[in-house]
């Protein structure tokens, strides 16, 4: 009996991990969701509002795209995110979106064909939206550009093959002429005069190309709260489709933030976004800065615009990087006077040998870095051994200071001395001891008089 019990116990213990393993498989639930393609101030974020989501957050004054679908929703514990399994179920609901504002005014929003794409700017990503007939036009334009490019590539390949064959044929002739004792100079001249065809450049019009037409409800609303629900093509209302829409806007725009790249951690840049913030560094390496424009959004609203299931603080505003400051320069105030820093190209070299580390050196396109691309384009702020504090600000292309770009760099090489701080913290106790001892002394000195007073009173 005891053997059987022991066997059962061992079996149970052996099966326990299997039970845990099966519990790790995410449970998929069929839900009516809204897929959201929301503009977040710099690009488009794809997210979705599950059935238990209390609201959809969108940015005011820009096009955002919503569609209602039936999909499988599950929680992925590895990343702590809610996800959709659209491969298994992705049922698109046609119909009309009914939208009410706070005043109770309702309007119907129809499904529309759309595409979005990003055209190349000088520094920026420039998002555009095409709606209705313009979708096909834009998509065709993109396709034509690439068809032309592929035709050019085919023509290039043909010309290149012909060129190679001609070169080979000429080479053969030259060799034969030489073997026959003839003069190949004419053939050599001809060979030299042949021009190798140039490979065509791929079209650079689009940074992100337009996709084939998609269908969605396009919302471009002023700031406020709204309610939506889906009306089926037969006019009935889809159950469970009612959702609150929160449309928020930037509190401040065109602030200046800095990307701070220390040379020993160039792959992990930090950001200095708050205008009055102080950048504390230990001064072990030089800093490479990159100024950028930033907009300020409500933390919760922005986080949920990017990811509807995200968490954020409803009462805190945070700065979000939007784009690089074009043609900027940085003015550093040092004890010796102001120094103007320009944008430079740098190349990151890995430390040779077994020791890990990087060295950032100026990019040398003609010398050591010929044929390579620069790793870093930034403004170098040198931190010297005696540097204690630096003040800097960004200037625009005309040399005018950009408001809100002032920052202070403080080099903190060591913590304030513990002895000093603890002594100062102990001062109130010392003062207490002094006051209490003085009081005690005074009280003792008055003791005979008190005793006399007591005896007289009796």
């Amino acid at each position: 009996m005891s053997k059987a019990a022991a066997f059962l116990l061992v079996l149970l213990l052996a099966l326990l991990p299997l039970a845990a393993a099966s519990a790790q498989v995410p449970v998929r639930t069929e839900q009516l969701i809204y897929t959201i393609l929301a503009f977040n101030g710099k690009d488009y974020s794809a997210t979705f509002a599950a059935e238990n989501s209390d609201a959809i957050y969108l940015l005011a004054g820009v096009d955002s795209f919503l569609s209602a679908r039936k999909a499988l929703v599950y929680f992925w514990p590895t990343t702590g995110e809610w996800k959709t399994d659209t491969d298994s179920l992705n049922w698109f609901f046609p119909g009309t979106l009914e939208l009410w504002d706070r005043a109770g005014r309702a309007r119907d929003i129809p499904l529309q064909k759309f595409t979005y794409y990003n055209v190349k700017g000088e520094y920026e990503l420039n998002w555009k939206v095409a709606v209705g007939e313009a979708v096909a036009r834009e998509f065709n334009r993109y396709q034509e550009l690439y068809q032309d490019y592929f035709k050019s590539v085919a023509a290039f390949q043909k010309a290149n093959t012909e060129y190679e064959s001609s070169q080979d044929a000429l080479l053969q002739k030259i060799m034969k002429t030489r073997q026959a004792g003839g003069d190949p100079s004419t053939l050599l001249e001809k060979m030299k005069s042949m021009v190798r065809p140039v490979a065509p450049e791929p079209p650079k019009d689009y940074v992100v190309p337009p996709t084939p037409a998609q269908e969605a409800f396009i919302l471009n609303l002023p700031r406020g709260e709204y309610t939506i629900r889906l009306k089926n093509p037969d006019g009935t209302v889809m159950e469970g489709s009612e959702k609150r829409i929160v449309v928020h806007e930037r509190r401040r725009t065109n602030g200046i933030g800095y990307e701070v790249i220390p040379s020993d951690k160039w792959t992990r840049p930090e950001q200095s976004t708050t205008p009055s913030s102080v950048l504390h560094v230990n001064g072990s390496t030089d800093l490479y800065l990159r100024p950028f424009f930033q907009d300020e959004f409500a933390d919760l609203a922005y986080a949920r615009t990017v990811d509807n299931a995200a968490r954020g603080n409803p009462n805190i505003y945070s700065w979000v990087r939007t784009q690089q400051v074009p043609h900027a320069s940085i003015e550093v105030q040092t004890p010796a006077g102001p120094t103007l820093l320009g944008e430079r190209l740098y190349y990151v070299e890995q430390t040779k040998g077994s020791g890990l580390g990087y060295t950032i050196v100026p990019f040398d396109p003609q010398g050591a870095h010929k044929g390579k691309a620069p790793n870093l384009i930034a403004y170098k702020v040198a931190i010297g051994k005696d540097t204690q504090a630096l003040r800097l600000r960004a200037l625009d292309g005309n040399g005018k200071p950009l408001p809100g770009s002032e920052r202070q760099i403080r080099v903190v090489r060591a913590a304030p001395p513990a002895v000093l701080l603890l002594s100062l913290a102990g001062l109130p106790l010392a003062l207490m001891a002094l006051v209490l001892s003085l009081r005690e002394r005074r009280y003792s000195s008055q003791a005979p008089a008190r005793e006399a007073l007591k005896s007289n009173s009796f």
Partner: protein
Amino acid sequence: MRDRIHAAAVIARRQIQETLLSPGLYVTLALGLLLGAFLVRGFAASIDSSGFNPQLNPLYDLIARFLGGTFGGAFVGKLFSEGPYLFALLVSFAPVFAYLAIASVFRFGLEKTAGAVELLTYGPADGTAYVLGSFLKDVALALLALLAILVFLAVSAAAGNLVLGPLFFWALPVVFLAALAVCAYGILCSIIASNASSALALFLGVLLLFLLILAGSYSIASAPVRSVSTVAATVIQWISPFFYTAMCFRGLQGGGAGALLGGLGLLLALAAALLAAGHAVISRKGVRA
């Protein structure tokens, strides 16, 4: 009126003297400064080549995890954007402030129960003068404690090449006025309650309620928690000193002088309203326990 103010000033002076002759203020101030010292040194130890990195120091790792988990990363970023001093100010002032407020509430209750306040009213002072004197004592000692903390933190900043920062300096009047409003609540609770322990319980309960509502509205908790907190806040926030304190900090954060000055004015108005309410109650109810 002049007699009442004179009586209040005399009572305040007497109470300040008594407070300075007892160890409580010194101990709590030393404790506050000690906490400040740990925070400043911890911050300096958390600095690497790219800036403030809480993971480098166990204390800051814990603080950043707790605050980040409760109020979000953006909150932590704002709190330490100018250095450790805003947080150090709040933490250093907390023990002294708690001592002053609790001691006032408890003392008023005890003296009321013992009949000491009633005895005073047979002389040149009345209940309002006593209450006003107690409040003036809190004002003076809070100011003294803030000055001591300011000097301590300024010395630590100079010694460590750190900066106090504009947010810190703006936080000083905000913290001071918030402390006054909370002390005014303490006085009102003492007047309303019949004895010291119930006054203290009422005061701590009210403070806890205000703090929970503030924490709820700032937390990154799920929507239901936030909704409950928001509903509660819409009713109670207008009488909460922490709501106006948060309004001041929001104004500071957004560069809006209006919100900052409005918040400071409202804190002052709240303290005045609470004292006026205290005067009305004590005039009607008297000073007997």
